[in-house]
């Protein structure tokens, strides 16, 4: 293993400390629960939106805490759900009379931890609702899940719910926004290499130099099939077809198109994929209203990418356009 680590067991709190120090005044870090929250939340009459999951997917989830995005998030160890009490403290840290919406990606460990945390919060009189995100079309059931996995589409749920909450929407309305985004977003990914959790020190799965895993999960879970690697356009076509046919997206639809890097693929390669995906979308009669190319939901240093389509309406376009700020910046 060749990584920038000090003590592997301290990897998660150490990177969280870096996120905190890089965002002075904006974020608060509570190390006991591996929890980062906005310093200006809770705010009276505003719904808070929270999330928490295993680490290794940065910028999801902790680095998407900020104005117009998440109010707070907690991190578990790499690829493992956070403990129940951290989830509970996350809800409690931003609880308001308007309520808290918990966005949970569909993994068994995350679901059980948040479900129990919500029950504990409710017992304390906190108004809380949870929503399960499951945008991955590659497999119906997977490692750690019953039903489809939650992957890069999560970003759009956070963005839209964050904007709605910032605008002062009530809890039921923000929940309805989450439902609408999840119902209209679909993703599929492909991996070219494996990845190494720092505390584990070895690759989470083996893959040959000339192979790809089509439909990969963000924890290295198997997808649809293992195959010989193809050229970029052929791979993009397979991802696009799988995603586009699933909803299905129809000619005339206005969409957001995302090419998400899984952590170890250069931005230039992501734009090679985007070029083909954009052309395929236009050929299919889709209007690409907004595009996203970069890293939104990763799997440590895995080389690979995912393609996401989100069907838009006036409300969602407005929410995607709304200003937002996160802990990762390049300017």
């Amino acid at each position, binding site marked *: 293993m060749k990584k920038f680590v000090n003590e592997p067991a301290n990897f998660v709190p150490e990177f969280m400390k870096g996120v905190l120090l890089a965002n002075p005044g904006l974020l608060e870090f509570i190390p006991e629960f591996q929890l980062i929250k906005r310093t200006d939340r809770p705010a009276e009459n505003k719904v808070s939106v929270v999330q928490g999951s295993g680490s290794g997917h940065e910028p999801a989830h902790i680095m998407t805490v900020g104005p117009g995005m998440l109010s707070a998030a907690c991190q578990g160890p790499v690829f493992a759900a956070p403990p129940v009490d951290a989830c509970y403290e996350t809800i409690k840290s931003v609880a308001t009379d308007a309520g808290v919406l918990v966005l949970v990606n569909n993994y068994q460990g995350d679901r059980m931890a948040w479900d129990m945390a919500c029950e*504990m919060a409710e017992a304390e009189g906190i108004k809380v609702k949870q929503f399960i995100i499951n945008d991955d079309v590659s497999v119906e059931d997977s490692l750690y899940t019953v039903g489809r996995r939650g992957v890069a589409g999560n970003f759009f749920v956070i963005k839209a719910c964050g904007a709605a909450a910032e605008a002062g929407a009530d809890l039921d309305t923000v929940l309805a926004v989450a439902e609408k985004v999840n119902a209209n977003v679909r993703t599929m990914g492909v991996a070219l290499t494996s990845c190494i959790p720092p505390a584990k020190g070895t690759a989470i799965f083996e893959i040959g130099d000339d192979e790809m895993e089509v439909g990969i999960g963000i924890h290295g879970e198997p997808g649809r099939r293992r195959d010989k690697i193809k050229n970029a356009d052929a791979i993009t076509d397979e991802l696009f077809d799988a995603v586009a046919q699933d909803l299905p997206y129809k000619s005339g639809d206005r969409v957001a198109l995302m090419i998400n890097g899984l952590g170890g693929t250069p931005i230039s390669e992501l734009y090679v994929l985007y070029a083909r995906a954009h052309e395929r979308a236009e050929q299919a009669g889709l209007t690409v209203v907004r595009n996203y190319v970069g890293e939104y939901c990763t799997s440590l240093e895995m080389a690979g990418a995912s393609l996401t389509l989100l069907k838009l309406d006036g409300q969602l376009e407005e929410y995607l356009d709304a200003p937002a700020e996160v802990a990762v910046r390049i300017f």
Partner: protein
Amino acid sequence: MTELTIEQIEKAIDVASDTVIRNEIYFSDLDGLAGDGDFGTSLATGFKVIKADLPTLDKSAVGAMLLKISMLCSKHVGGSSGPIWGTGFMRAGMASKDKTSVSLEDLAAMVNSAVEGIMARGGAKLGDKTLLDALIPIAEKMKEMAPTGDAAATLKAVTEVADKAIDETRNLVAHRGRASQVGERSANTPDPGIVGVATILYDWCKHYGVDYTPTAAELNR
């Protein structure tokens, strides 16, 4: 009519903690056959804290103590076991809230409530090869035995239920949890959750002098 005091329940949990701690490696090895091998360690990490904190926990009522234990599970038991065991203690605590002692019938209601909570939490049902394959028939047996007021006979009966569950589920394919992902590979391996429950019950038998001879190989080590 048998009434269990808070002190007696505290002692039973202390004995169970010893069972979990002593079997840390064995339970993880069982989990490693089809799962990710963290079950024993996850559980033992939490029960070490529970055992250490037990003497100083709130003992104003049975429920108060169990709710504190639930909180310790949710904080210190890792992986999926945290919410599962935490839910069990939470529901049992809610069902015994202000009681300073519990009858066998109270205990049966607490166990039933815990089992319902765990089913709701994880979405598993009978035959999915999880610890519920032991807990569901245990709850039924307790309800049946409770009116007798015979604690020793009830313990023996539920230990037999858990013991049998090990062998009855051995050849099932897991439908929930990490083991569900290896499909057929999970057949012919015992479920570590079921073995865990059965081992705790068998150790209680030994502690309370209840004579029981187990059949499953996992209890005859």
